[in-house]
């Protein structure tokens, strides 16, 4: 007969085995990206594969990010723009469009949650906007943008990201606002707070964690968006995903080390943001006081 403790042990072994295998599969590409970014040229394609760079080198980073000595004249000159400019473009575009989406989205969500300014059907239609594949709207959008002079501008990309992520912002923040009991707001109102005061002093602080989570979610979308950026930007405001893609079809051959160094640079800012706000992400909601 299998005892209870034995059964627990077997189940733990099985669970951890599955998790470990899954973990290796999931993390291997990230490990490979990191390791390749530190490899000297000859180890990029080496067979049998080189798992640990020997010796580790920063040449790839120097070349890609700082436009080191050979940037202009060597075979590794892929893009006309240095990645630092793209990094700046990506930062400005992703952060401002995300900020706008969350700010407007949460105001709209408040209206929906408290005043039903949009019916359920309208809310669903709003989400439906996201179900249209971006490729479908790319052609008309670029025509409009060309006519309006918004092609290849930061503001153009900010606008389109803001509008395409707004539905997510509304849906996500609405679910957080719905969690704030109406009575808490009414308590503030009857104590003398105006509606705006109530929103800023009671509602927003209470959904802070939710706002932060929404912000990060949308930031990830806008930071790594590729298709719209490809069509709307040309040479002036190229973003990091566009830069990265240039390595894929490059006429200069596969420069994996440089590509990996660039990829690491794209990944790190999001990780930093994630680390800064992890407290909020983990905390979620703890309305200790509201008994239902």
């Amino acid at each position, binding site marked *: 007969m299998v005892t209870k403790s034995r059964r627990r042990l077997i189940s733990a072994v099985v669970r951890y085995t599955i998790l470990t295998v899954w973990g290796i599969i999931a993390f291997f590409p990230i490990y490979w990206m990191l390791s390749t970014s530190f490899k000297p040229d000859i180890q990029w394609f080496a067979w049998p594969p080189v798992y640990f760079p020997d010796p580790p080198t920063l040449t790839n980073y120097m070349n890609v990010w700082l436009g080191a000595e050979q940037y202009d004249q060597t075979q590794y000159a892929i893009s006309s723009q240095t990645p630092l400019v793209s990094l700046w473009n990506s930062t400005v575009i992703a952060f401002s469009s995300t900020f706008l989406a969350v700010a407007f989205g949460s105001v709209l969500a408040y209206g929906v949650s408290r005043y039903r300014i949009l019916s359920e059907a309208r809310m669903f239609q709003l989400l439906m906007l996201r179900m249209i594949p971006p490729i479908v709207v790319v052609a008309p959008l670029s025509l409009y943008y060309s006519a309006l002079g918004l092609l290849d501008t930061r503001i153009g990309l900010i606008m389109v990201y803001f509008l395409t992520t707004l539905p997510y912002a509304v849906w996500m923040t609405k679910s957080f606002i719905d969690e704030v009991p109406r009575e808490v707001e*009414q308590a503030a109102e*009857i*104590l003398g707070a105006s509606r705006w005061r109530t929103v800023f002093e009671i509602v927003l602080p209470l959904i802070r964690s939710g706002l932060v989570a929404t912000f990060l979610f949308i930031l990830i979308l806008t930071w790594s968006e590729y298709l719209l950026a490809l069509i709307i930007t040309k040479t002036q405001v190229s973003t990091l995903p566009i830069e990265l893609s240039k390595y894929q079809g490059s006429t200069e051959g596969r420069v994996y080390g440089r590509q990996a160094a660039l990829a690491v640079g794209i990944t790190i800012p999001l990780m930093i943001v994630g680390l800064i706000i992890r407290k909020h992400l983990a905390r979620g909601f703890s309305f200790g006081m509201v008994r239902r």
Partner: protein
Amino acid sequence: MARIELSSLNKTFGSVTAVKNLNFTIEDGEFVVFVGPSGCGKTTTLRMIAGFEDPTSGEIRIDGRVVNDLEPRDRDLGMVFQSHALFPHKNVAQNIEFGLRMKKVPAQERIKRVRQVAEMVRIAHLLDKMPSQCSGGESQRIALARTLVTNPSTFLLDEPLSSLDAKLRRELRAECDRLHQELKRTFIFVTHDQEEAMTLADRIVVMRAGEIVQVGSPMQIYSNPINYFVADFFGSPSMNLVAGSIVRDNGVARFRSQLFDVVLPERLRTASPGKATLGIRPEHVGIGDDANSNTALPVRLVEPLGKDTLLYFDAGTERAFVAVSEGLRMAATKVGERLSLSLDSGQMHLFDAEGRCIRAS
């Protein structure tokens, strides 16, 4: 000072009528309790007074001034919610201080008044804590303090005690009573608990299906229920209600049912024959008085409560017929034992087929 008048007040939500033609005046300094089963419109009425719901028609006046169009914050009211509705991200002192801050009271003054009120409701030791660190009873005291500190003319209390356990409820009930005595303000209290209504109110307003059924002092409501519903709602254990009919037998009016045959007292002799319900409170049923017996029933259950003993008799219906015996004298009564019961004819109530109380003519 606040005298609150509700005139021809109506509220509908879509096709549902929550409050129907309410006319009622709450006098200054009065403690009024709205009581009734859930969905009877009592909370909607309170929320209309507070300004959170707009009446579909009718007027609300506070001290003669129509307030229908005033925002909640401009009505000089304080409200305590069932869920306490404390601000979870502010500590207790900040919670209490909130109303003063909105009224732009200077900081020094605020600190002083927060402390005063906290001492008044005995939570001074909690001022630095977060609401989530406080128990249910403490939270309700904080909610009370937060309202008290703004010194409103009227306190609106929406089932403030219903989320607490029985002991705390009694404790806070006494607290509400004490505050009312001390502050001499108008209190409007909503509850579905008849015991709360009985112990707190100067006047009770019984509501059902959006309408006022009866208004009166606790004793009036208890001793002279206007209909079957009120009779059944008030009292614990509730009134015994026996279905039967009024008959005339040799010129004498009697109430007869399967198990009871009672000669009606003088004041009810003129009652016209027909279907009726006899009501009698458990404390007005005599046990074991064979000489004046109206019926004899088998005991179904004995509940010794210490101060007195409840005896549940099998009356052939789902609901038992209840009698109270003082002390523990009857505590050893065997289940199934048949005892004779006598009804105090002076305390009998009769309700006609529509449930209305049949009054003496």
